[in-house]
C-alpha cells in the first residue's frame, strides 16, 4: 500500500508545474535491438529497432498482445534465446553497480559479453521470473533443494545451514513459511509457486528483475497480493523491474513508465499516468479502450477492429495502419520511428509530424491541470469525472 501512496508524488512530479524530479541513472539501456527468428527471406522479425531504458529502482512496464515480441525482447536482454532466434542488431548495455556495494561498478555490453561474463550477470545481477511457474520449477526436487542449488553455486562461502537459513529468509520475504522448503512444486498452489519463483529470482540480490507475465495465470486476488508484495520488496531492496504483461490496466497502477509494443516495435513510451490519461499513439488509445471501466455509466466500447498481425506477414509501413482509424496514405508506405515528442515521452506515429492535423483523442493535454499543483487527489477526481 505504501508503495502506491509513495508513487502519487512521483506521478505528479511529471507535471510541468512542478520541477521534474532528478531521474535515477540508467541501469539497463537497450538501443535499436532487433531479433529475428530464422535467416534470410524466411526470417520472422520478432523485435525491430527497440529502444528502452530502465532506471535504477524504477518499474518499467512492457505492454503488448501475444506475439508482439515482448517476451523475445526480454529474453534477448540476457541472451537467453535459442536458435533459430538471432539478435541481428542493436546494443544492450548493463550499467552494473551491485546493490550490496561489494562489486565494482562497470558497464557490460550484454550482446558482446563472453559466456563467463554472462554467467556473472545472469541471476546474480539480472534475474528473470518466468510466466509458468510450474514449468520453471523442477518437479522432482524440493523447493529447498532448488534454493540450495542457486546459493551453493553463486555463494560458495555459505555453509549448508547458512544456505538453508537464507532460503527460509527468502521465502519469508514473499510471505511464505520456511516449512515450505520441504515441499515439492506440485504441492504448492499456483500463487505460492509464483511467490517461490520471485523469492528465487531475488536470492542473489539482483539489480534488475525481469518479470515475464508473472501473474497472468493467477486469480485476481492472488495476483494483487503478489504484486503488492513485489512492490514492497522493490521499495526495500531497490531493484529495477521490467514488467511484461498484456494487461495494460494493471500496468497503469504498477509501473513508473510504460512502453507499448505492437508487431515487434515499440509504438509509445511514457510515464504510466501520462500514458493512461493522454495516450498519443492510436494503438495505445485503442488498447486503453479495450478495458471496460469499473465506474460510471456503461457506454458501448469498440475495442480495436481487426486482429493483431501475423509476424510472418507484417503490413508494410506502419504495422498498425490496417487497424488504425486515422490512417493516412503515408502510413501505408513509410514506417514511423519512435520519436521524442514531449519530455519523457516518445511515440512512433506520423500523426505527430509537424503540420499533420492531429485527432483530438491523441492530443489530450497532460496533465489535466484543474487543481492546485500538488493536490493529487483533486487531480484524480477531476480526471475520473471526465470519463
Amino acid at each position, binding site marked *: 500500500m505504501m508503495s502506491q501512496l509513495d508513487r502519487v508524488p512521483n506521478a505528479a512530479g511529471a507535471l510541468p508545474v512542478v520541477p521534474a524530479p532528478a531521474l535515477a541513472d540508467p541501469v539497463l539501456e537497450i538501443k535499436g535491438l532487433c531479433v529475428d527468428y530464422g535467416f534470410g527471406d524466411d526470417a520472422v522479425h520478432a523485435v525491430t529497432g527497440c529502444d528502452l531504458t530502465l532506471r535504477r529502482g524504477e518499474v518499467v512496464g512492457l505492454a503488448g498482445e501475444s506475439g508482439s515480441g515482448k517476451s523475445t525482447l526480454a529474453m534477448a536482454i540476457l541472451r537467453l534465446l535459442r536458435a533459430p532466434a538471432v539478435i541481428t542488431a542493436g546494443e544492450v548495455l548493463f550499467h552494473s553497480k551491485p546493490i550490496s556495494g561489494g562489486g565494482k561498478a562497470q558497464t557490460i555490453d550484454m550482446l558482446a559479453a563472453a559466456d563467463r561474463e554472462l554467467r556473472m550477470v545472469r541471476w546474480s545481477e539480472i534475474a528473470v521470473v518466468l510466466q509458468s511457474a510450474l514449468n520453471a520449477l523442477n518437479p522432482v526436487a524440493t523447493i529447498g533443494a532448488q534454493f540450495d542449488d542457486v546459493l551453493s553455486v553463486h555463494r560458495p562461502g555459505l555453509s549448508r545451514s547458512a544456505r538453508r537459513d537464507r532460503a527460509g529468509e527468502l521465502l519469508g520475504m514473499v510471505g511464505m513459511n520456511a516449512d515450505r522448503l520441504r515441499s515439492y512444486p506440485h504441492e504448492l498452489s499456483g500463487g505460492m509457486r509464483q511467490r517461490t519463483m520471485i523469492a528465487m529470482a531475488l536470492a542473489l540480490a539482483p539489480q534488475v528483475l525481469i518479470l515475464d507475465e508473472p501473474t497472468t495465470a493467477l486469480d*485476481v*486476488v492472488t495476483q*494483487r497480493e503478489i504484486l503488492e508484495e513485489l512492490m514492497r520488496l522493490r521499495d526495500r531492496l531497490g531493484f529495477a523491474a521490467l514488467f511484461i504483461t498484456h494487461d495494460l490496466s494493471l500496468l497503469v497502477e504498477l509501473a513508473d513508465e510504460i512502453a507499448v509494443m505492437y508487431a515487434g516495435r515499440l509504438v509509445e513510451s511514457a510515464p504510466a499516468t501520462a500514458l493512461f490519461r493522454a495516450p498519443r499513439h492510436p494503438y495505445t488509445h485503442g488498447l486503453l479502450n479495450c478495458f471496460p471501466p469499473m465506474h460510471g455509466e456503461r457506454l458501448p466500447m469498440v475495442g480495436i477492429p481487426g486482429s493483431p498481425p501475423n509476424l510472418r506477414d507484417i503490413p508494410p509501413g506502419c504495422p498498425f495502419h490496417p487497424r488504425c482509424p486515422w490512417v493516412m496514405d503515408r502510413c501505408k508506405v513509410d514506417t514511423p520511428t519512435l520519436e521524442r515528442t514531449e519530455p519523457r515521452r516518445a511515440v512512433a506515429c506520423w500523426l505527430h509530424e509537424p503540420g499533420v492535423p492531429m485527432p483530438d483523442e491523441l492530443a489530450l493535454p497532460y496533465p489535466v491541470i484543474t487543481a492546485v499543483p500538488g493536490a493529487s487527489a483533486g487531480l484524480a477526481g477531476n480526471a475520473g469525472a471526465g470519463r
Partner: protein
Amino acid sequence: MTALAVDTPTATAVARPVLEGRDLSKRFWVRRGRGPLTRRARLRAVEGISISLDAGQVIAVVGESGSGKTTVARMLARILTPDSGTLLLDGVAVQGRRTRKYASQVQMVFQDPFASLNPVHRVRYHLVRPLRIHHMAGPDVDAAVSDLLQRVALTPPGQFADKFPHELSGGQRQRVAIARTLAVRPRVLLADEPVSMLDVSVRLGVLNLLADLRDREHMAILYVTHDIASARYLADRIVVMYAGQVVESAPSVDLTDRPAHPYTQLLLSAAADPDRLVRPALAGNGAPPSLLAPPGGCRFHPRCPQAMDICSRVAPPSVDIAPGHTAACWLHVAAEDRHATEAQPEPHTTHTEKDLQKLSAGGTGG
C-alpha cells in the same frame, strides 16, 4: 438458500425464465494420496445454486478458479448431471439424459477456441454438422452457412467458410464457435469464459457480439468469467460465486458500485482499476478453501475482515439489500435476528467439530 429471482411459473407466466436451475448441487469424487493410502474424497463443487436466465438478458457468473462457475454452466448445459436440484426449461422440469431437443435450445461456447474446433475440418464443416444433425439443413446449406457467418460478423462469408481453424485468429475462431452454436437456433447461450483466451484488443468485439445476440435475437445468455470489469460491461446482472455457493447477486452496476458482500468487496479491491490513483487496501487475505472440507458457517469467514462470531458457526441466509440485490452475509442481518439465530442450536451447519479439526489439521491440499 440463494434465491435468485425465484418466481414460480404460475405466478408470472409472462416473464417466465427460459432456463432455470433450482438448488443445483454437484459433487465430484477425487482421489487423494498415493499408493496404498489412496482414498476417495468428496469434493463439493457446487452447493445449492439457483439461477434463472431470462430471454434478452445476460447473466454473468463471476468467481475465482475453483469457485464452481464452470460446473454451473455445464450443469445448465446438461453436460454434467446435477446430484440434486431441478432444471426447468420454459418452466418444465427436464430429467435424465440430454436430449437432442434440449441441445437445440441450450448451447454452450467453450473457453478455448483453439481446442474446441476440429483442426482437420474447414469452417463450413463445423457449421454444416449441427444443421444436419438437427435436421435444419434445408435446401440451401450454403446460404445457411453464409447467414451464420454474417451473424457473427465474419464477412465476406465466402472467404471464411473454406478456411481451416489454424488460418483464423483467436477472435475469429471464437466467432466460428459461436456461429456453430447459433446454427440450431438456440434460445439460451452458455458462454464459459469466451474471451479469456483471446487477445486483449479483440475481446470487446466478441463481447459486443454477445450483446448483439441478446439485443437483436433476444437470446438468454450466461456469461461465465473471472473478469468483473467485463461482466459489468456486458451483463445485466452479476452473480458472484465463492467456494461453490452464490454470495451476492445484483444488477451489474449496483453490484460493482455498491458491493454488499465482503468477498465481492475483496474481488473489486483486487481488480485492476487505473481510474483510482490510490488503491484501497486489499480487503481480506488468504486463498479460497479446499472444497473437500469447506469451512463451516459462511465459507468466506476465515478470510473475512469483518467476520463475527456467528459467521463460523451458522451459514448466512440470503438477504435482500435492495430490490433485486441479495447477499448471503450476516452483516446485513439485523442484530436481533442474528442473536435469535445464535440462540438456537445450530440448525444449518453441515459440519461436525471433527470435520473442522480435520480441516485445520490438513486442509491445505486440493
